[in-house]
């Protein structure tokens, strides 16, 4: 195990002395059992330990970087505010469209207070090595005029490095925010381990998009813990195809009445990609709604996983919860594993889930071919239709067009 790591705790020395001892302890605990493996129920379908061992050696957190701003190519498809993160750390922001007083963006240094998951080894690792990240807060009664784009840039000297960061997003009452996280990297092979905390207060809305546009050799893990207030809404769209490894682990609690949570994902996984979406939606109050739709297209040697859990507490009557996972397997070497789980303690609820996996409908292909469309085109058309369905819920036309374009590029890559 030891040769796998080459960790230098001095890199985290910007923090206090007590902090240092805590970090040492956490690192020790982490090294005792290493990366999670199949024996851990949460990692049943994703043996991270063997994936990391196969691809990495001498993993180090020791890196310096020079950042040149012109490396980041801003998107011009729609007007937006921007936040720039370099290797997970907050660099700068531009909120030209907004009322500056209402928005607070700064770097986030605390390693406490973020998602306590003590039985998650990656949490220990994060606690030991995290250098912070960003903190974003929207004040009360403010609806952001334009979306915020997080440019998540990774520098070029990251081979065999590990990045640990932690972020916090807080939306105060009666506010609204659209946030897009967009990764840009320099084709290095590295690991990123992120812990993120989201708090959505009463009557607020957060729309959060995870976007990966190009192929990347990144191995990403992201843990999101969210709490929602009365009549709040969290809408999450995951379009992270392109990463060699990605696991998004979300735990969202609907703590007050009338709140809702949407998690929608459309992935088109290429060769050797392994992506997992794991969710736990906790219905803790009556009259809440959750809706999950996970769609995967799997090319050869790719592996798609969905582990979703809906928990309904006994007082959470009139819950409406839905989970759907669909996978298209394009090749015999691809694999799709799912575990859609329900744990329900209230009786007046509507909870259901569905899961299907199989190949592209031969009849549909035949139909298109009889209309003069070539086989490859017909397949692309069907895949596009299959994935585009998740965009139905996006009202902002420009963002929708941008996302559709992204998906199209990914499909053409297939």
């Amino acid at each position, binding site marked *: 195990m030891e040769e796998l790591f080459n960790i230098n705790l001095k890199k985290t020395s910007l923090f206090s002395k007590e902090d240092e001892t805590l970090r040492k302890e956490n690192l020790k605990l982490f090294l005792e059992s290493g990366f999670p493996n199949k024996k851990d129920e949460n990692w049943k*379908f994703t043996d991270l330990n063997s994936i990391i061992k196969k691809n990495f050696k001498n993993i180090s957190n020791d890196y310096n970087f020079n950042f040149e701003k012109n490396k980041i190519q801003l998107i011009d498809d729609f007007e937006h505010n921007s936040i720039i993160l370099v290797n997970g750390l907050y660099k700068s922001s531009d909120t030209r469209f907004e009322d500056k007083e209402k928005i607070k963006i700064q770097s986030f240094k605390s390693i406490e207070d973020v998602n306590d998951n003590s039985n998650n080894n990656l949490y220990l690792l994060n606690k030991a090595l995290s250098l912070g990240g960003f903190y974003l807060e929207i004040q009360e009664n403010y609806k952001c005029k334009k979306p915020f784009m997080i440019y998540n840039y990774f520098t070029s000297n990251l081979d065999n490095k590990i990045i640990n960061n932690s972020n916090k997003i807080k939306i105060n009452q009666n506010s609204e925010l659209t946030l897009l996280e967009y990764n840009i990297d320099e084709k290095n092979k590295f690991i990123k381990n992120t812990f993120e905390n989201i708090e959505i207060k009463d009557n607020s809305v957060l729309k959060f998009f995870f976007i990966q546009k190009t192929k990347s050799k990144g191995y990403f893990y992201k843990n999101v813990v969210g709490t929602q207030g009365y009549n709040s809404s969290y809408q999450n769209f995951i379009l992270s195809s392109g990463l060699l490894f990605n696991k998004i682990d979300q735990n969202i609690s609907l703590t007050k009445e009338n709140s809702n949570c949407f998690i929608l994902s459309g992935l088109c996984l290429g060769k050797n990609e392994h992506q997992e979406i794991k969710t736990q939606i906790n219905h803790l109050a009556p009259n809440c709604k959750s809706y999950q739709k996970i769609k995967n297209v799997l090319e050869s040697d790719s592996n798609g996983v969905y582990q979703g859990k809906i928990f309904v507490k006994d007082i959470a009557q009139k819950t409406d919860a839905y989970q759907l996972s669909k996978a298209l*397997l394009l090749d015999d070497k691809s694999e799709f594993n799912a575990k859609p*789980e329900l744990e329900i303690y209230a*009786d007046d609820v509507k909870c259901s889930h569905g899961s299907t996996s199989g190949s592209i409908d031969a009849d549909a292909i035949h139909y298109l071919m009889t209309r003069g469309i070539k086989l490859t085109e017909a397949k692309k058309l069907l895949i596009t239709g299959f994935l585009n369905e998740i965009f139905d819920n996006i009202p902002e036309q420009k963002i929708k067009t941008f996302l559709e374009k992204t998906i199209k590029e990914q499909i053409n890559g297939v």
Partner: protein
Amino acid sequence: MKSEELKNQEYKYGFTTEIENFKAPKGLSEETIKFISKIKKEPKWMLDWRLKAFNRLKVLKEPNWQKPKYPNIDYQDLYYYSAPKSMKDKPKSLDEVDPKLIETYNKLGIPLNEQKKLSGVAVDAVFDSVSVATTFKGELDKKGIIFCPISEAIQKYPELVKKYLGSVIPISDHYFATLNSAVFTDGSFVYIPPNTRCPMELSTYFRINASETGQFERTLIIADKGSYVSYLEGCTAPMRDENQLHAANVELVALDDAEIKYSTVQNWYPGDKDGVGGIYNFVTKRGACRGKNSKISWTQVETGSAITWKYPSCILQGDNSVGEFYSIAITNNHQKADTGTKMIHLGKNTKSKIISKGISAGKADNTYRGLVDIGAKALNSRNYTQCDSLLMGNKCGAHTIPYIKNKNSSSTVEHEATTSKINEDQLFYCNQRGLNQEEAVSLIVNGFCKEVLQQLPMEFAVEAQKLVSISLEGSVG
């Protein structure tokens, strides 16, 4: 102590006479296993097999991932063999039996003689000798079908037993299966010769010493090429039993073109209203569709036991083989059920279907846990899973934990699950037509379970329907 004296006596006479009062030494040890093996007059290979399992057991740990937790079982505090009760200990007549039990029998419409047998009333020899069992036996012999206690089969048909015992559930499988392999006392053995259709439903009820099979039952059913058998286990009437832990193993083997239909109705004592007592039913059931075009179908109605923990599974090895699982699990009061199935697709064109209905009332917990695994070589395979749960009240829980694995692009897996309560409109409609609340609920629940009830053989179906209603008594209000 009197029992001490008795034990010494037993040793003195070397177990040759009067097995009636024998008890194995308390606790789990090599001696206990040797004792069981000796009393069953088993050949050496069988004892070796048991000891191998026992050695394996020493390194295994009890599983703890399941939803229903139970207090630790002290395995050294159990008797692993006790001979059937003598006539003296049994109740003399139905008057001595718990009136509640008799009431249930009457509701189920069980004939008086059967009632006596079920409640363990000493049945006089006359009744026994005219029992249907002997008549059936003759008919089965004519067809070459073997249906006997497994201890008899070990002596009479050692080749068959050697070949198939432990071939579906290996002795090192998991804690309870291994425990069973080491200490099993008896169970059924069925062999259907090639191209034979078993002319009747085989049932433990008709096997002569069926009611005393004990807590570690072992069943082995082999359907040779082109044969068919339907096997019924358990019975709708509530069964009383002193043993709290039941760890049975059931193995099915279907060769080319053979079909096995295995139906269970389980209604062991569930404990009282506060969840005190009750049976732990930890059963390992597994079938292998070894041959081409073979089929195994499991149907279960689980209404009893404090904890039910079992996953009747199918290993679909042969091309074109079919696995089916139909289940109703009803839990009331403090009962807990964690049940489901595993469908492991290995052969080409294999198909499986899972229909599971869970009903939870009172403070009960009901979990469906299942696995559908389609291997890379299982081309053109198909699975369809439907699991529905019905909740009555907000003190009970219903959970669905399906594991779905697909490694093959030509295969299709479909899974659906819903959880809901009884539709108010339907209840209202029934009430309006003069049915009281309880009758209405029973009618609706029976409708909810219909798909599974239909799979039961005729003998069971009618009684099972009544059982579904009775199990939910007192939960509506």
